[in-house]
């Protein structure tokens, strides 16, 4: 059984589909890259996967781990192991970063029928995860994403991923905002989290990230759907020639 199976998905806002007929199968252990021009609907797809209530699914299905994902709300999906690394993580002033991470961690433990961890024990867990993504400890006591630079926000997303240990991670443009050194550290962290039981969908504009996290499949996304799929060599072609050579025939 596949971990994720999207079939002919149409979704968007009331009356307007942004995602138009996406089909995609992701198995455990795989890394998929989705590349495509601005405004093509990549983030919309990601948010539909995570269960954003503003989007309407007009057609198609998503099966996750054998269950109907569209029947689950955002929190249930998260607890079932779906993770979205946001393209634009929101700032939440007043919410302490470390405390928030502990709440999320505990929500998962409770779901698994385990005891919650106290702040002291969690501190140790967090230290280790912060090291993994190369994040300074001072970000523990900051308000969630408030005043973080673009790169710091992205690191914080990966930190959350590391803390939660999801089965299916969708990382939406996690590379933008990171300088090359930070990108290497983050990519190394993501690679350490990868194993045969989980899967990764990387949404990106640039092939740069794919030098550090090697995809098994590359999909070209345009006009709300996947117009071409291939191996990692497709990313190099896209980088060298731009999207026009693949998008043009589709028009």
């Amino acid at each position, binding site marked *: 059984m596949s971990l994720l199976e999207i079939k002919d998905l149409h979704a968007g806002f009331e009356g307007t589909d942004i995602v138009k007929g996406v089909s995609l199968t992701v198995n455990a252990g795989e890394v998929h890259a989705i590349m495509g021009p601005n405004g093509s609907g990549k983030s919309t797809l990601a948010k539909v996967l995570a*269960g954003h209530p503003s989007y309407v699914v007009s057609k198609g299905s998503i099966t996750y781990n054998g269950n109907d994902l569209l029947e689950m709300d955002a929190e249930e999906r998260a607890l079932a192991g779906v993770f979205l690394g946001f393209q634009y993580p929101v700032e939440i002033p*007043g919410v302490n970063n470390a405390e928030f991470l502990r709440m*999320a961690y505990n929500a*998962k433990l409770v779901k698994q029928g385990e005891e919650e961890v106290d702040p002291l024990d969690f501190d140790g867990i967090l230290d280790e995860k912060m090291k993994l993504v190369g994040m300074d400890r001072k970000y523990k006591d900051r308000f969630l994403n408030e005043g973080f630079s673009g790169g710091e926000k992205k690191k914080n997303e990966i930190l959350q991923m590391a803390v939660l240990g999801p089965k299916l991670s969708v990382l939406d443009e996690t590379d933008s905002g990171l300088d090359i050194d930070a990108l290497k550290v983050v990519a190394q962290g993501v690679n350490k989290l990868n194993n045969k039981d989980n899967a990764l969908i990387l949404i990106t504009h640039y092939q740069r990230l794919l030098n550090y996290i090697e995809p098994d499949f590359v999909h070209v996304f345009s006009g709300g759907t996947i117009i071409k799929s291939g191996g990692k060599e497709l990313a190099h072609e896209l980088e060298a020639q731009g999207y026009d050579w693949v998008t043009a025939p589709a028009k």
Partner: protein
Amino acid sequence: MSESAVKKTESPETAVLALHEKFLGGDQAKASLRPVNQAGIERFELLKFPHKKHEMYTFVNTHQLAGTAFELAADSPVDTAWVQSKIYPACKNSVLVFVNGAFQENLSDLSGLGDSFKIRCLAEAVAEDEIKQTLLDSLEDENDVFAAINSAFVHHGVWIDIPAKATFGSPLQLLYVSTGSASAPVTSHPRLIMRLGEMAELKMIVAYAGTRENYFINAVNDFIVKDGAGVTFTQVQKDDAESWHCSKTRVQLHRDARFFGRNASSGNRLTRHHYEVRLKEDGAELHLSGASVLVNQEQVHNFIRIHHEAPHCSSNQLFKNVINDKGRSSFDGTVIVDKGAQLTNSDQLINNLMLSDEAHADNKPNLMIFADDVKCTHGTTVGQIDEDQLFYLKTRGLSQELAKSLLTTSFVDSLIQTIPFPDVVADLDEILLKKLEAKHA
């Protein structure tokens, strides 16, 4: 409150005049303060209780408050342990306790403040012409009727004079305890006048608490802050839910003087904070902020007038309210920048988080600018919980309820956390945030 407490036959003003006569004839009034009491009641007669369209009370209905026939709160014993529990640990050797407005020497402790801290009864201090004149002058153009009533009945006030260059190791706490009443509603009129000499620094926390319901605390605070001096004035208002609270804070800032005023209100029948600040000389700096969490029919109102009278001064205001049920809040703030006050920096920001359809918030930030080279901004937001923030938290596995309560809590907490006293932050987390949790549970 019982209907019998409201004497329908009299006008509210007549009831106050009658109470005033009784007060002057009784043993609470101090002879030395009689000129102030007299000037206060005359001012009251002139101003009268606000009618509906009164420009100072556009958003605040004081009808019920004015129509309540109060007795003056008498001296009343309080449980020492209860009082102790209201004293912040950091202030245990720097606390002044007042019960129904009267200073309690035996419950207070000033040992941590040293010799430079001087406090006197207003009744005694008023013998000095300067102090008497300060009090009378403040009445000349008093435009707030409740502040005039305070002067009409003042008998317990204190005068604190901080000498030049004085600084203190611990913050000063003023604890105002109201004992309320089992029968007729009672009122007290605390008065504080504080002068900070040049370069003096004082951090103070003013906490208000009630041992029971049915009271009206009507406080007036005056600050004269001399060159280079700085004050933080944090009002923690945790009065009984069945009480009324008015406070007027008047501040004069001289050259390079700083004033940090904060209020946090736990909500009651009616709370109104009135700030009147004059930045009189170059380089003065003002910060005002307030936070409240309102449920049921609770009300908190802030009325602010800031006068920029000199160049190179700055003022900023940040107010946040979380309003549930039929709670109400208002913000009516005007910054007046005089002709000569070039290079003024000023901003006002009011954020309200509305948790119910019946919650109500009025906001009127206002600028009156007569200088041409200034930087002034103002803004207001009134909104529900942000859907994207809620979604973000839920994608991390937090339940709808937990995510909502976290967002509501954080909305006020982002302001509370900036208070530089850990004891106060913990206390407010306890009162304000618990209130939200209770509502969400």
